[in-house]
């Protein structure tokens, strides 16, 4: 219950939404799916600005990659062939296990990005692909890489009078990506999320990236671990195991009341080894 709520606006254009966001920075919250605001029961919220009808719900592919509007729901991401085919299914796999069917019909891409909860599944995939956000304010549109947005937290990198309108998943045609969620049940929050993308040329890793989330408070790119595999033969399982083990020491873990940090450190290398195996297999034409 939002006990102090006084105003509810549902603008029918982005311009109107930006004007309202500009005029209502104190005690105002943007909502689209609304799940985070409704679950938080924040008693300081005085104004809700519902941006569902602002026309930012399309998914299109162009020469730069795949562009998804910020109010695209997780369910719509999963129904999009552009997303299914993007980078070996990286974003599709990350979105697949988010919450439950009713919640996937509500949760939006932009909301997921702004909230970036420790257990959110998409952030690791967004880091891996180098996602770029379009952030609009009343008089300006700026580009913000997701990597920069999560240096502290997206809610600190984006002002209260700004609205994320679009996410660009950059063209990664020559890459294959895989993602996995480790949790007690499908519906449960992740204990660990991990993802790998790689470009394999002449049987060797020309480029490879590792990312993890649900380990610490923010998602992390593991550049040291990935660097151990750059140039290595793609079928070198020993090198893959070494890089996967290094991921456990490179990752910054924070306490999780469900499992110990030691447990997560044991699990993480196995997740990365399996992901590398899947990436290599798909690159050879398997699945």
């Amino acid at each position, binding site marked *: 219950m939002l006990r102090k709520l006084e105003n509810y606006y549902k603008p029918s254009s982005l311009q109107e939404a930006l004007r309202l966001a500009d005029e209502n920075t104190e005690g105002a919250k943007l909502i689209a799916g609304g799940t985070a605001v409704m679950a938080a029961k924040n008693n300081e919220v005085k104004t809700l600005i519902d941006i569902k009808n602002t026309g930012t719900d399309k998914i299109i592919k162009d020469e730069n990659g795949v562009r998804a509007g910020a109010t695209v729901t997780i369910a719509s991401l999963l129904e999009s062939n552009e997303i299914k085919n993007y980078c070996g299914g990286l974003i599709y796999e990350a979105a697949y296990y988010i919450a439950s069917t*009713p919640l996937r019909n509500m949760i939006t891409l932009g909301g997921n990005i702004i909230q970036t909860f420790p257990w959110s599944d998409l952030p690791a995939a967004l880091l891996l692909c180098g996602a770029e956000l379009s952030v609009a304010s009343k008089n300006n549109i700026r580009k913000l890489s997701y990597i920069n947005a999560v240096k502290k937290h997206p809610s600190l990198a984006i002002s209260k009078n700004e609205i994320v309108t679009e996410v660009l998943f950059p063209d990664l045609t020559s890459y294959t990506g895989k993602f996995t969620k480790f949790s007690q049940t499908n519906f449960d929050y992740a204990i660990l999320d991990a993802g790998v993308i790689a470009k394999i040329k002449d049987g060797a890793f020309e480029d490879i990236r590792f990312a993890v989330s649900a380990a610490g408070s923010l998602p992390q790119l593991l550049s040291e671990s990935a660097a151990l595999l750059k140039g290595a033969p793609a079928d070198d399982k020993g090198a893959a195991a070494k890089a996967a083990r290094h991921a456990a020491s490179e990752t910054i873990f924070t306490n999780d009341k469900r499992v110990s940090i030691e447990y997560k450190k044991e699990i993480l290398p196995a997740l990365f080894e399996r992901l590398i195996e899947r990436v290599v297999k798909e690159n050879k034409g398997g699945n």
Partner: protein
Amino acid sequence: MKTIEIKLKINNEDKILRVKINERLVDALRAAGYKGIKKGCYEGSCGACTVLVNGRPMNSCMIPAASADGFEITTIEGLGESDNLHPLQESILETGGVQCGYCTPGFLISSYALLKSNPDPNMDEIKRATDGNLCRCTGYVKKLEAVERAAKKMRGDK
């Protein structure tokens, strides 16, 4: 608390509801007489309050009632009548998939959405479609069988 008027369609009937600005859709619908919708966790976890919004299952506890202006909503009351049950309602009775019954309306609404888009789902698809509807009594087996059974009835299979 400030109130506003919302116009929406509930079970194919045009309705005008006056709702508190901070009210949740589940509470507004129950206050309007749709008591088949159950109040549960109020955080989108249990699925007892699931309704169809514009054809898609959603947790009505997570939707501000104020945002529902213009929505088309289907509740369990919209599926069948007590003397003319929907195949899903019939099947869940036949398989014994109801114990306390608190989760049943939400579960059936999610299943209804599935069968509308996929008349011949496999068991994995049924589980996936109902993954947001928790049941603490049945162990799910009979409920899931009920969806398979209803799908067969709706397809006219023997």
